[in-house]
């Protein structure tokens, strides 16, 4: 009797350990998921931890109403924790895309899990109080509880997330929870009522969780949500696009509608190549126009020219310009360029603005997203470049980010040919970007001084001799004839769809 009692206590204490591990894992999953999906990890983690602990308190409080059949209740709660903890991340992944009140569902599930987990330890202690002396009981239960917590917090980031991912991890620990209940069922078969009912229940739940575990990759891709491997530090849906900022190992990346816009470890190449080849060919440039480029990174390069007096930046989405003017790591990245006194930011449709403006500019940087839909396609049309012609000073230049000549050769040359069709001279050039591959630009002008003027000293990538290499196009990405992109044919977006469609 003595011996079996000791064994029973040990078994129950092992359950404490497993329960504690599972409990903390659910909390970590919820916190991670919330910061993945909603961004701003500090806020999300704080709220999740707070809510979770508070709900555990609720659980402890209501545990006093459990007086009879404690073991049955304990096993029942284990099964419930297993199913709720196991499937909640799946529910959240789906709910994020479909449901408006995502936060409500998130917090509800957190509180449900927390309350159930909060019930576990007090009930267990009540069961054990007849088997172990009180002082010993408290010390043992809490020792196992805290060891379990430590175990979970080390296991989760180092092993579970890298090797299993969020969904598999939740299913795995859900199963563990239920396994505890199954073992207890068998061990205390004779002591508990409704044992058959509990066994069947546990079996069904295990089966569901196993299925989830096996098919978790399919579920993840079905949920169609962010398959980012990186830490999301900001995410927001503006009226125009979904903005996601990630940070991993010191590298910041911006995604708009899940398309990578820049990576902080090589964006300097892209932006130096966008700005300097053109701007260094103008004698004392004063008035600059930037269309798109609300991240302030092209602007950072422009501000390296002391002769520049005024800059206008037109970007549709004020969420972008605001983000890059307020977030500390991003301000560091753009060198606080968006606070420059020379700058005026206007958040409006670039086509509408340029049609109406009476101003003229020495240098125009056109840094729009790739022409993947009709509304962006307009900004690569003959009529748009006609408007550019009107606002370009005599002797001025403009540069256009023109997608990849490697992945979208026809699209690239279509942009070049469209600009040339309006009588501009063009200089197509390209370079290699580690994050994107081969990337193309088109520089255009009416007339050009042959010499180069001022070029900033502190550049990381660009120097004059680079340009000769950049204008050289190997055979596989060389010139092709294309149609001209017009508002009434939007041929460019058809080229673009064809070409990038094959890549993705």
């Amino acid at each position: 009797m003595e011996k079996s009692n000791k064994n029973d206590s040990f078994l129950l204490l092992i359950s404490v350990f497993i329960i504690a591990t599972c409990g903390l894992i659910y909390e970590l999953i919820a916190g991670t998921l919330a910061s993945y999906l909603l961004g701003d990890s500090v806020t999300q983690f704080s709220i999740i931890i707070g809510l979770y602990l508070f709900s555990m308190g609720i659980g402890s409080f209501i545990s006093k109403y459990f007086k009879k059949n404690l073991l049955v209740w304990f096993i029942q709660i284990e099964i419930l924790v297993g199913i709720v903890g196991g499937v909640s991340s799946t529910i959240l992944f789906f709910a994020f895309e479909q449901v408006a009140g995502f936060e409500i569902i998130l917090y509800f599930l957190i509180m449900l899990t927390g309350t159930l987990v909060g019930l576990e330890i007090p009930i267990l202690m009540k069961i054990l109080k007849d088997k172990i002396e009180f002082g010993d009981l408290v010390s043992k239960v809490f020792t196992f509880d805290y060891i379990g917590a430590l175990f979970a917090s080390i296991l989760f980031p180092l092993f579970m997330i890298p090797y299993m991912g969020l969904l598999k991890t939740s299913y795995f620990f859900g199963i563990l929870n239920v396994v505890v209940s199954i073992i207890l069922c068998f061990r205390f078969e004779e002591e508990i009522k409704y044992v058959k009912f509990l066994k069947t229940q546990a079996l069904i739940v295990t089966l569901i969780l196993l299925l989830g575990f096996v098919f978790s990759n399919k579920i993840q891709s079905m949920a169609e949500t962010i398959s980012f491997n990186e830490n999301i530090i900001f995410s927001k849906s503006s009226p125009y696009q979904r903005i996601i900022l990630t940070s991993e190992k010191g590298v910041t990346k911006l995604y708009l509608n899940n398309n990578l816009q820049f990576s902080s470890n090589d964006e300097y190449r892209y932006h130096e190549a966008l700005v300097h080849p053109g701007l260094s060919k103008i004698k004392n440039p004063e008035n600059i126009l930037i269309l798109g480029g609300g991240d302030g990174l092209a602007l950072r390069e422009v501000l390296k020219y002391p002769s520049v007096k005024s800059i206008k930046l037109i970007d549709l989405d004020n969420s972008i310009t605001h983000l890059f003017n307020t977030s500390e790591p991003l301000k560091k990245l753009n060198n606080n360029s968006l606070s420059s006194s020379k700058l005026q930011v206007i958040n409006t449709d670039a086509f509408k603005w340029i049609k109406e403006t009476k101003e003229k500019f020495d240098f125009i940087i056109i840094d729009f997203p790739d022409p993947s839909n009709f509304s962006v396609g307009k900004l690569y049309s003959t009529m748009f470049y006609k408007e550019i012609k009107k606002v370009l000073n005599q002797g001025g230049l403009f540069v256009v980010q023109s997608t990849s000549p490697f992945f979208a050769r026809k699209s690239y040359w279509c942009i070049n040919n469209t600009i040339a069709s309006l009588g501009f001279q063009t200089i197509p050039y390209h370079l290699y970007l580690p994050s994107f591959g081969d990337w193309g630009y088109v520089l255009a002008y009416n007339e050009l001084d042959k010499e180069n003027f001022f070029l900033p000293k502190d550049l990381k990538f660009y120097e004059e001799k680079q340009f000769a290499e950049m204008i050289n196009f190997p055979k596989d990405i060389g010139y092709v004839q294309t149609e001209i992109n017009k508002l009434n044919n939007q041929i460019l977006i058809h080229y673009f769809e064809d070409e990038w469609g094959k890549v993705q």
Partner: protein
Amino acid sequence: MLLAVPYLSSCSLFDKRQIKLAFIGSDPKVGHLIRQNKFPEPITSKKINTLIVGSGIGGLSAARHLLKNNKTDFLILELDSVIGGNSKAGKNNVSEFPMGAHYLPIPTVNFKELIDFLVESKIITGFNSDGLPIYNEYYLCFEPQERIYFKGIWQDGIPPDNGLNEIEKEELLRFLKITEEFKNAIGTDNKPAFTIPLELSSNDEKYLQLDKISIFDYLKQNNFKSNFILWYLDYCCKDDFGTNIKNTSAWAVFHYFSSRNGKAANAANHELLTWPEGNNFLVKKLSAELNDKIKTQHIVYKVKKIENKTKCYVYDLVKNESIEYECENLILATPQFVNKNIFDFKTNLNFDDFNYYPWIVASITINNKLELNGSQELSWDNVIYGSKSLGYVNACHQNFNSDDKRTVITYYYNFSEESSKIERNKIREKDENYWKSFIIEDLKNAHLKIENLIEEIQIVVWGHGMISPKVGFRSSKSRQILENGFDNIYFANSDVSGISIFEQAFYRGICAAKSVLNNTK
């Protein structure tokens, strides 16, 4: 009772968002005054060389032509408070939008008067080395131009590329092949089989016999049976002629498909010109120099012939008094359903030859245009297969307003299941809420949640819409009388030609003005 108070207030809190509703456009009561004929006796009498009645495209085109030929002694009288006829436009804080006519296909280069007008209006900006007009690309309809909701998804182009069965495809191709052949066909009189202006088309019996049957009968006789082609041509007839497939002359349908042979330096021949305000843009251009020549809110209620002069009795709605105008020439740019009530003498005209079915044109302000995309981006023209409506046109299509989530779509519905009189009775005295549900029920077929997207609906009820070319219209005696005019009275409405398109109204205006000029010489 006390308990009910918070309940009620919470009800209103969660009540559905109110959709703003309004009738816009001309007041039907004003037009109906003519029929009641209770006007005060004229207190003044004025003399004028030429009086033009109606300020639609026909009237404005006639006036413009007179002015171009240095004839200035004329006046345009319009019963409405704004000019434009079927090419009127409305406006709200999102966009302008059409109330009726909303596009002009690229015209044939032979239509010199029209090309000249487009040059003068800077719609054509120059000519290339082959002499082809270069159009202002802001006015050429942007891509994507049209889409159809067919078998549960939006598809590019009307008719759709996918989802038709073999028979439907075969019949569609066979029909389009006939229209292609007619495009280049020349009659025995050396005139093109189908051209614009319609009056210059061939009188070869081979083509004219198509006017003796409806397009419905033509299809039956030529073994076209599939539902799709019947729906498609019924849709075309309603859209372009304001009546159904059984009422429309087959000749008119082939004219629609085969007369458009425009050429341009920078557009394909099927392309078209459009503006947010629709053809009201052209109204503004036509009337650019006519400001002091137009009197609105003037109803011509009686036309009398006295010796070789014409007397017009005009009621000034603002001053509430009548005036008598004695004129040498009278151009009636008004439709025949108006004219039949103002002639004070017998004519040989059979007014039953002229049919005008009622329409609803509703401009709907949408608070999130992206929600209308579905599987295809919102196009200029958006048609729902199987619906009895004609779909909707995106009024903001030619705007650059990606910074505005909102848009205005203009919804068209033509009532022509039964006779025009019965149809007019059906739509009479329906209120705004009736039309709101009517429109939403239809659009729901393609946009399930559209009701939640609507901010405002501005409804135009046209008791008499465009002229419909019924079987035999080409050989109608009444129409020929109108073409020639009589006793210094000339007709300039597009119903003289029998079809309601900008080009015809423009042409009839010039013809009427030319007659006046000939008379004066």
